[in-house]
Structure formats: C-alpha cells, structure tokens
C-alpha cells in the first residue's frame, strides 16, 4: 500500500448527502478482474449524458475545468453508502482523488478507503459547508491535510482536527497493509484454532 502523509490540493465541491457507491461507480463497470482502470468510469452517470457525451460544466461539477486536477473531494452525510464494492475507492484514486472530506461516511466505504491510501476525513457539517462555499467562490484555494497531526488547514488558515484510529493512521503513514500484519500472527491463529472447543 502507498503511504499517505500530507496533501495540499484544490477541492472538488460535491455537496450531496447519501452518495452511494452505485453513483461512484455503476455496477455495469465492475466486470474487470484487476484493481486498475476504473477512473474513467468514476461518477459515470453524473459526468456523461444519455449519448455518452460529457455533460457541460453547468450540469456536472466533475466536468468543470475550474476544478480539474483537484485531489480532494468534498461531500455531505453518509458518503459511500450501499454496496461494499472496493471499486469505489479504486475509481476515486484512479481518477486522482487522495482525500475525501465529508460530514460522515458509511462504514464499509470508510474501511475500504483506508486500505487504498484514500484518506477519509470527517468534519462537522458547518465546517464542510464553509469549505464548499469557499471553493465555490474561489476554485483555486488550497486545503492542506496532514495525517501526522490529524489537522486540516482550510482556505483562510483555520485548522480543524479530525479523528482516525491510531492503528489505521500508522498503517497509512508507513504504507503497511493488513495482510502482512496478520500473517505475522499465524502461529497465534493456529494455536487459537487448536484450542477451540
């Protein structure tokens, strides 16, 4: 897994609640057998019209050149609800996002994101709405997300702390995945199995 330490980037404002993983990547694009190549279909039905043409910037924030290259996606409550498809964080990463700031996250998406160096940052609603307004007014404003200090620096300089489990934080900072960690405990797992009634 790739490490995540700090990011300074512009933001994509996507102010919606309950964005489900079918929106992030529709099921018809899940027929691959690899972890790569999903970015082109990220938010497909939000980005493309019935004829498969890119929607105008006025109809889709993802097609607005002012936000092109933003590595932080900003959204509302319960981001990533629904299907457990890890294709959702794969598609977000592949498209170029490294952080999702939202008011809250669905459990499975949150876990899947952490396993792909896509940092989910939950901030209070008024902070997120303030950020949305700021980037809508000035798309070039920068946000700094620092994992070690668990701080987000908003446009204008205000700092906000965010929560993350200490173990997960360390895994991200060091780029360590779960499999190696648990494989190192095989003897313990075998002993536990043997002792089971």
């Amino acid at each position, binding site marked *: 897994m790739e490490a995540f330490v700090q990011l300074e980037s512009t933001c994509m404002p996507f102010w*919606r609640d*309950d964005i489900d993983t*079918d929106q992030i990547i*529709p099921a018809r694009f899940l027929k691959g057998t690899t972890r790569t190549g999903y970015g082109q279909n990220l938010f497909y039905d939000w980005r493309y019209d019935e004829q498969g043409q890119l929607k105008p910037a006025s109809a889709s924030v993802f097609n607005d050149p002012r936000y092109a290259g933003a590595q932080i996606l900003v959204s509302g409550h319960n981001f990533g609800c629904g299907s*457990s498809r890890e294709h959702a*964080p794969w598609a977000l990463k592949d498209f170029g996002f490294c952080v999702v700031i939202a008011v809250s996250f669905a459990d*499975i998406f949150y876990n899947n994101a952490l396993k792909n160096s896509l940092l989910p940052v939950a901030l209070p609603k008024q902070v997120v709405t303030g950020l949305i307004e700021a980037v809508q007014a000035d798309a070039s404003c920068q946000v700094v997300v620092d994992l070690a200090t668990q701080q987000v620096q908003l446009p204008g300089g205000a700092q906000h702390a965010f929560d993350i489990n*200490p173990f997960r934080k360390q895994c991200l900072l060091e780029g360590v995945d779960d499999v190696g960690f648990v494989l190192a405990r095989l003897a313990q797992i075998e002993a536990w*199995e043997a002792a089971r009634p």
Partner: protein
Amino acid sequence: MPDRSKTLYEKIWDAHVIEQVTDGPSVLYIDRHLIHEVTSPQAFAGLAQRGVGVRRPDKTSATVDHSLPTTPRNEPIADAQAKNQIETLRQNCAAHRVTLYDVESGQQGIVHVIGPELGLTQPGQTIVCGDSHTSTHGAFGALAFGIGTSEVELVLATQCLLQAPSKTMEIRVEGCLKPGVTAKDIILFIISRIGVGGGTGHVIEYTGSAITGLSMEGRMTVCNMSIEAGARAGLIAPDHTTVEYLRGRPCVPQGEAFDEAAQAWLALKTDDGAVYDRQILLKAEDIEPMVTYGTNPGMALGISQTVPAAMSDGDEDYVAALAYMQLEAGQPIAGTAIDVAFIGSCTNSRIEDLRAAAAIAKGRKVHHRVRGLVVPGSEAIKQQAESEDLHRIFMAAGFEWREPGCSMCIAMNGDMVAPGQACASTSNRNFKGRQGKGSRTFLMSPAMAVAAAIEGALVDVRTLAPAGLDAEGVC
C-alpha cells in the same frame, strides 16, 4: 467478579477475538467466507503476488451470481467480460481447492440464498463476504457483514479480519402484523423511520413478537436490508424456527450431533439486563404495505400515503430525487405507472417469496404494458417452485421464469430496466441507475410487485380485484 450481562452481538464478538491490538482493531476469526465472481478476482491476484495460498479452503465457499445471465444455461455467455470473470473464479477455486457451487450443480444461486440453504450459515458463526448484503445471514444469529476486496484477500490469506467493535442497537417490533403486511414492509418501515444512515456504526438486533413470529425467509429479508440503514450487520437470536430450518441441511451436523449443536444455538441470546447503545420500539400495527418513492431505501411510505414535501426549503437532494422519479409532492403514490416488475434478489427470491407472489399471480394477467420477471434465488428454489407448479402460474400470467442469479437487482448480467422506465422491484436498492442507467426503482414486497405488474401501476395488494373464476383463491 461475574461476567457482566452481554448482548448477542457481544457474545459472538468475544468468542471470535484472537487478539486485541493495542490502540487498534481486534484480530477477529472468521468461521465462513463466501466468495463470488465480482469481488474476488483481485483478491486472488493479490495472494499470487504475495506467494500466499488460501489458508482454509474448508471454510471458504464460492458461487456465481452477479454477472451470470439468467437466460437458459445452454446459451453461451455473450458478455466477454462477464464470461472472463466467471472463468477466473472457476480457475481460482480449482487452484486453491475451494468448493464452487457452480451452475447446474443443483446448488448454484445467489450467495446469500445458498449459504443458509446448504446449512453453511449457522448460529453463532462469524460470516463475511465481499458483498454488503452479507447481513442476510444475521437472521440465524450469526455475525455476518460485507467486506471489501482487500479484506477478502486478508481472510483468504489468514481466515481473520482486523475489525473494531460496533455499537449495538435493539429494534423491537411488537404486536401483530396486519394481513397483507410482510417482512419486507417491516424493514422498509424501519429504514423510513431511522434513515439510510441511522444504523451507521451499529449492529442491529431485531427483537419483539413481530420478528420472532417471522419465518426464516422473512427474517432473512429483514436482516438483508440492515445495510440499507447503514448498519454493519443485523441479528436475530436463534430459536426453534431457526433450528427446524437448519435440521437436515447438507452442511449442518447430522443426527445426535445436530441436537447437541441445537442446544448451544438455543442458548445464544442477549442476557437479561444487557445494555444496548440505542433502542427503538415500533408497533407492528402501524405498518401497512410499503413502497419506496425516492432514490434511497429510506424514502419509503405506506401505499395509502401521498408523496411528502421536502422537510426543509432548498433541500436540493430531495427535489432532485423526486424529479428523477418523475413524482410530485402531494400526489398519491398508488396509481404510479410501472413498466417492469422484478421478483427476485437476495432480499426476496426464496420459496416463500415465490409462493406469496404466485398466490397473487394465480388466475391473473400481467398488464399488457408491463414486462414481468421472476428470478428464483437458487437452483434448489427453482426446482422446489417447479415441483409446486408455481412456474406454470407465473408463465400463465405472463411472467418470464428465469434461471437463478442477482439479475435485475444490480443489472450487471444483461437484465436491465431501460432509461426512464419504472420498475416495481422486490430488491433492496432504489439508487439512481441501480437497475440500469436512468432506471426508476420502486421497492416493495413480492405480493405488492405482482399486484403492480397486474395493474400496471402501484396498488395496495389488499384491494386487488378478485382473480378470474378459474382461480382457486390465495393461500
């Protein structure tokens, strides 16, 4: 000091923790890992990269369901990508000695249908699958939840997960359901009350007489949609209904060993005095046949009701949802025209669902404008339904009778709703585009979906005109 009182969830959790990592998650042992073709290929590829095998193939079970066409099995799979995904699963299972319940084994089906059907699902177990509707298996008093593909890889490699404990929530539904009200209506009612994020961070235990009065099929429908309330899992304590459902299934202990196991299962319940983090009490009498009207499962109402107005001015999400569904605030939901009716999915494709659907379809005809599909959840259910002549009832009414799979619930296998069309669906998600780009989904029970198919519009199944004279009435 005596052990403190525990909830059912805490008992199962504690019995599977191998190690509590300092300041981190627990190493949780997994009793049963279910896999399918869509979320496993990348996990097997990850194992190969690490040079690691499947640690416990005996605790891993596979089937094909999501990408598989529901057309006759002798027809080739036309979609090359879907075919490749299915072939990849076959190769991975063969290489790692994982039992695959493949097509025409007589045991293939939707992963959450065949687990219980085979008796792979048992009370007190931990069960995971790369699919959010793994919560279904909680109906047996198993701690069952969906995981991502990285976690599939972890479980394949180690038979363990790294998990943090969840909070607990009791949802108690007391009283008697009115005639015509089903398990699907209970769970849609619950989600409409607590919202699609209402269960986030929690494992829900469903209790109360309206829950314990349900069959196992009904309990599975309730637990299946726990994820639609955002919950990690749903649970129902095992009882005699659970034991009798499991008795004689291929993968449960047989003979005296079964009775011993059953004794242990019946003791698995929340202790008196155990404390849940949150409790909700609902009355079964308040529930009528439900339908969804919006673009998430929390946007549901009774069939007699009118589409509500936005709770606050400027609620863009709500306005967008109604516009997408082509509805207006204030209009009665009954009478909304539909184009497709889908009876199937891991929520409602079991034999009891098909019996309930056939009881309404018998002696009636699908509206000339409507395409109706019935997709049994497994090969075993298909066989059972055919032995009861249910397929003849469906086909005589004008429904298509198809091969088992996830089908139009997720629209990955060619079974799709066309842009703009409305579908009365027994599945679990009414997200925008879920059943095909531009599709409009109305979720409901099997009986309600059949009634809608016949009327060509959403209708209260309890008010349906009597079937033709040749009908023998509903069971």
